[in-house]
């Protein structure tokens, strides 16, 4: 920016955001406190140039004043080693004024292990900023027989201290009172240890604990009991499998009624528009473009919310850390690690949140490998086309009890994607992304009851982000695609889709995709996916068949059956299993890997894999039948 003086000028003239920074170690209840303080007055802030996500919020007071507050990434120390620590360090020391100028600090400390967690207070207090130390999880501390003298700790550290339970709101008044002061006093002088000396900081923290009469709570009995089952060599593995299956089952069966309801709502809206508006280009745009395109995406909201509900419950209860531990050995065989489990599970709903979830993986090469294979997992957006093609081409026959041929085909596609992902990870980790045996360090937090409030906030956050995307990017893309499918105009009427721009492009690529058994219509469908998302495929095919006005067979399924050979149908399934047809994923990969390099490599790799796989499927099926 310094190359452009004008930009600097504008930047300097803009009033800088003064904010109170929320700092603390992971699992200290930092985000819960943030949610309790700000309510829904918050937004996700993505830092330019860094791969760390954080939240900006406002605390409102009775007199109408608002104090901005920023939730910085969870850290164990202030030494800028990991990406998270570097961002927290830079924001606190004023090296990132574009994010916020920190006017005061709330340091959240898990009170159940004060002697260890207070060590972070030493580097924070050395910043000499007004600070409030929040001893969180007071209920846990009391419940297990621990005590601490807050007034004595205030005297020792020279800063105010609050004892809170963020999940219930206990003690949060004192935090609000601290934030509400017109001028927050700077800390009084207190002796601090040499910051670079970790053992010295730890000794200092223990000493502070002793002086304020800290009695550590008894070990968490329930956590030990539960771990005896959850980490049992046999039961633990079985529970892990059961939990994973439950998450899957819920995505597919429990989300169904809600998805059907949204579908009928969209259909109802379409009928209403058809009845109220006269036949015109606008009506067609609203029904085919907006409702058809955006609606096809919004239908997935229940699935995505259910997935995040489960991940939220598992994470807040503490089980997710155990799941990562159990998965570590298996994922370690292909060169990944336990922390890849959560992103890879999420990727079965949608690759975008999965790629964001890879931020917990500290090892950069492991993280990139996980990002690269995540979009190969069968995301929810592939289901509509799978259902259509399988329904059209595979006759339902019983195989084993309630499981029929169609279910077997679907499971086969999941396995195919999964195996391709595992093989890719293995190749990557033994070649370009080969790394030293990465240190796997993962804290096992005590089990806790998740609260509806925290999980609810997260779901609200996700729903909002998802609907915003559907209402902006996807809406624009579907409108653009609708125009391409109807232009140019001839005699004031849109041309048939075959002669439209989209149709012509479809015809142009037809020779390229004919080896896979696809015709130009499939080509247009695949191109429409590039514009929006994979779920566009079905609605595009619907639009094409509809505008061709083939009255004999209006049913989409039977039209597809006429349009494709059996080989082409299988090729289409394999193509969709492997191809990267999702602009959102490409853009999130670019952002998270810090450049176009990996995003382009991934796109090319997946496209080649899809083409070769589709070709092989077409030839194989044609040869067999």
């Amino acid at each position, binding site marked *: 920016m310094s190359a452009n003086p004008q930009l600097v000028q504008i930047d300097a003239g803009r009033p800088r955001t003064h904010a109170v920074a929320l700092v603390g170690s992971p699992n200290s209840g930092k985000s819960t406190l943030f949610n309790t303080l700000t309510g829904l007055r918050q937004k996700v802030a993505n830092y330019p140039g860094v791969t760390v996500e954080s939240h900006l919020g406002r605390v409102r007071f009775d007199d109408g004043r608002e104090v901005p507050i920023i939730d910085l990434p969870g850290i164990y120390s202030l030494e800028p080693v990991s990406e998270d620590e570097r961002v927290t360090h830079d924001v606190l020391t004023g090296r990132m004024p574009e994010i916020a100028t920190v006017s005061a600090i709330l340091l959240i400390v898990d009170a159940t292990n004060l002697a260890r967690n207070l060590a972070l207070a030493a580097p924070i207090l050395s910043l000499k900023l007004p600070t409030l130390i929040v001893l969180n999880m007071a209920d846990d501390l009391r419940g297990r027989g621990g005590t601490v003298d807050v007034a004595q700790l205030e005297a020792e550290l020279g800063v105010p201290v609050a004892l809170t339970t963020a999940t219930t709101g206990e003690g949060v008044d004192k935090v609000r009172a601290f934030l509400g002061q017109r001028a927050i006093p700077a800390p009084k002088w207190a002796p601090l240890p040499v910051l670079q000396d970790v053992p010295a900081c730890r000794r200092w923290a223990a000493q502070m604990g002793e002086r304020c009469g800290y009695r550590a709570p008894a070990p968490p009995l329930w956590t030990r009991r539960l771990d005896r089952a959850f980490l049992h060599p*046999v039961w633990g593995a079985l529970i892990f499998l059961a939990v994973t299956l439950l998450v899957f089952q819920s995505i597919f069966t429990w989300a169904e009624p809600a998805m059907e309801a949204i579908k009928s709502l969209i259909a109802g809206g379409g009928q209403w528009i058809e009845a109220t508006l006269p036949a015109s280009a606008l009506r067609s745009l609203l029904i085919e473009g907006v409702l058809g395109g955006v609606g096809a995406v919004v239908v997935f909201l229940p699935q995505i919310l259910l997935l995040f509900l489960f991940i939220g419950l598992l994470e807040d209860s503490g089980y997710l850390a155990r799941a990562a531990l159990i998965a570590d050995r298996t994922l370690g065989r292909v060169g990944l690690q336990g922390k890849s489990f959560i992103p890879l599970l999420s990727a079965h709903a949608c690759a975008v949140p999965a790629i964001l979830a890879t931020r917990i993986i500290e090892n950069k090469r492991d993280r990139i490998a996980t990002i690269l294979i995540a979009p190969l997992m069968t995301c929810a957006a592939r289901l509509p086309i799978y259902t259509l093609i399988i329904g059209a081409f595979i006759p339902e026959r019983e195989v084993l009890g309630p499981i029929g041929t169609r279910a077997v085909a679907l499971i086969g596609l999941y396995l195919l994607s999964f195996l391709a992902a595992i093989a890719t990870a293995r190749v990557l980790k033994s070649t370009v992304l080969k790394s030293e045996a990465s*240190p*796997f360090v993962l*804290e096992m937090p005590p089990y806790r009851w998740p609260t509806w409030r925290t999980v609810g906030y997260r779901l609200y956050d996700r729903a909002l982000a998802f609907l915003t995307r559907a209402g902006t990017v996807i809406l624009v893309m579907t409108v653009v695609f609708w125009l391409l499918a109807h232009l140019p105009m001839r005699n004031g009427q849109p041309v048939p889709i075959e002669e439209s721009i989209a149709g012509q492009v479809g015809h142009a690529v037809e020779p390229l995709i004919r080896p896979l058994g696809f015709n130009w219509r499939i080509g247009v469908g695949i191109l429409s996916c590039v514009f929006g998302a994979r779920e566009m495929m079905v609605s595009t095919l619907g639009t094409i068949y509809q505008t061709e006005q083939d009255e004999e067979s209006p049913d989409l399924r039977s039209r597809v059956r006429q349009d494709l050979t059996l080989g082409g149908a299988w090729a289409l399934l394999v193509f969709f299993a492997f191809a990267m047809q999702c602009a959102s994923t490409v853009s999130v990969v670019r952002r998270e890997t810090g450049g176009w390099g990996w995003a382009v490599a991934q796109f090319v790799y997946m496209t080649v894999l899809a083409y070769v796989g589709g070709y092989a499927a077409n030839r194989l099926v044609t040869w067999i039948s």
Partner: protein
Amino acid sequence: MQLGFIPGMLVEAAHQAPGGDPRVYRVDGSEIALRQETAARMFIANELQELRNALD
């Protein structure tokens, strides 16, 4: 090191993941999981052994 693996700290081995690796260690009031190859890089003295040596 910030997690509590600092000289002089007592480390206690706890649960293993199915298959034996990684393993959870209790150190400094919390539970940390480490892979064997990471744990092998730390130097740990056996408490009992040290006690015996001191008595001899």
